[in-house]
């Protein structure tokens, strides 16, 4: 007779012996779960890749849209800000705007795709046993794959604006990692909530739009009037975007307090979103 934990370790999704029992608490054995998740990492990658491929299937410019899309988006916002600001902004502001916008888009795309990931994976969920977190995590991979080409666009503008290139720019690596972790947490959260409230995907574009405007993207954080400062302080994107801007736009070391706040948001969102999703995922097959 083996213990419950031993059996559970061999079971869950793959392997040769599966044991299915009611879970004592909402969460499946996390160790076994993560192992299964890791075993199927190819699935998340392949799903992200095919989604990207399908998005530009049948378009004349094809993969070129991966560069054109963010570039045009950035230029539209720049034009908007220029019109409102009576044209006194320079290339260095464009660099700030593009960097912040692309970083924001990494998070917002993860969330938008994440919201659809579980509900849109209906057949697969009804037919196959696998860790469902793969679906929202794959949305984050898609968003990250969309983010990578934007770095080329940014690099060009950075060069044209003659912004400094210093070793501090390497801070971008851990900051982007925090953005990805934060995006993953939010993606899992909305993916699970969407199963219960299908209205969410209707709200989402507006919520994300407001979030975009209230984040220091179309303006510098320093320009925010005193009375709106509290809004900035509760916005997870504020520490993340400001740190990223400090490191990349200005080539200076990000403030430790902001880095810590960003890390806190990222880990918090990841743990909360992950636990919520995993504790609910076994119900998805019934709810779809």
């Amino acid at each position, binding site marked *: 007779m083996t213990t419950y934990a031993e059996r559970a370790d061999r079971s*869950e*999704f*793959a392997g*040769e*012996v*599966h*044991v*299915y*029992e*009611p*879970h004592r608490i909402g969460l499946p054995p996390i160790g076994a779960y993560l192992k*299964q998740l890791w*075993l*199927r990492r*190819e*699935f998340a990658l*392949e*799903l992200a890749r*095919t*989604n990207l491929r*399908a998005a530009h*299937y049948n378009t004349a410019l094809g993969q070129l849209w991966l560069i054109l899309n963010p570039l045009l988006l950035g230029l539209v916002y720049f034009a908007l800000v220029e019109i409102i600001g009576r044209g006194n902004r320079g290339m260095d502001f464009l660099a700030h705007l593009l960097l912040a916008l692309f970083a924001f888009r990494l998070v917002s795309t993860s969330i938008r795709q994440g919201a659809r990931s579980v509900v*849109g*994976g*209906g*057949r*697969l*969920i*009804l*037919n*196959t*046993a*696998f860790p469902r977190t*793969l679906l929202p995590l794959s949305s984050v991979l898609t968003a990250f794959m969309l983010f990578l080409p934007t770095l080329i666009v940014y690099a060009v503008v950075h060069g044209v604006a003659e912004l400094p290139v210093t070793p501090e720019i390497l801070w971008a690596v851990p900051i982007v990692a925090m953005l990805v972790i934060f995006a993953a947490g939010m993606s899992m959260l909305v993916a699970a909530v969407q199963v*219960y*409230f*299908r*209205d*969410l995907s209707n709200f989402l574009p507006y919520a994300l739009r407001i979030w975009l405007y209230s984040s220091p993207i179309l303006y510098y954080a320093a320009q925010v009037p005193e009375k709106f400062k509290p809004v900035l302080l509760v916005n997870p994107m504020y520490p993340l975007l400001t740190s990223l801007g400090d490191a990349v736009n200005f080539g200076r070391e990000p403030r430790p307090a902001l880095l810590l706040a960003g890390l806190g948001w990222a880990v918090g969102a990841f743990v909360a979103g992950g636990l919520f999703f995993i504790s609910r995922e*076994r*119900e998805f*097959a*019934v*709810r779809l």
Partner: protein
Amino acid sequence: MSSLSVSRDSVAELAAPFAPATDWAVQVENLELTYRTTIEKKPTLKRTLVRLGRRKRIVRTIEAVRDVSFEVPHGRVLGIIGVNGAGKSTLLRTIAGILPPTSGRIEVHGRVSTLLALGVGFKGGLTGRDNVILGGLAAGLTREQLAAKYDEIAEFAELGDFIDMPMRTYSSGMYGRLAFSVAVNMDPDILLIDEALSVGDARFKQKSFDKMRALCAEARTILIVSHALKGIRELSDEVLWMHKGEIAMRGDPKTVIEAYKEFLDVRESDVADEDV
């Protein structure tokens, strides 16, 4: 179907000798599965708010499976019959590990392949090829295993060039053919099939039936849910009749199917025997 009426026993002899089995492929102990569901098909915030405002809670508890216990020895074919809503599909999903049991225990020895809601193609915008690969990866197969299997799957499904077209362009028959082909070609130890004895046209139906018999002969364990009583009778070693979430009867195919028909009061009518 006359060409198929090789006696079931001769197939069974090839497959699993009727020796007392000591090892179960699937063991289900006191399985209960209840779930709570709202009546609304698509739960939305607005409806929830309206309902909360009226202090109404529309939660129904559905007892899909009630105290079910049975075993399937390795290499046996178990047919599961019963009227709509008897809990047959829920039972298969629980064995596949898709739905968690509310109480009781299931032990499955071997690699499981499922053909449940006719569903490889979960993304209509992607090609048949992409869907096959994604489905396989989700099921835990490696890329190498899939590459080795892929040609066999594509050939069996007979889709021709359609395999590289988006699945939304498929007819329902093509859909079913691909799904069936994936399930049976994944080299499963245990195959769970829900209502799939009848996909495609008459010729493919024949072909899939032959394939199923070949799988039975290879000593695979198969659980089939179907309303096609004739097919069930030919393929199964044992039949389980489920009614309202409980096992109404279990035993040799002929006896159970006769009893079930009596219950349905349809007798030997042609409609019931058709592979619907």
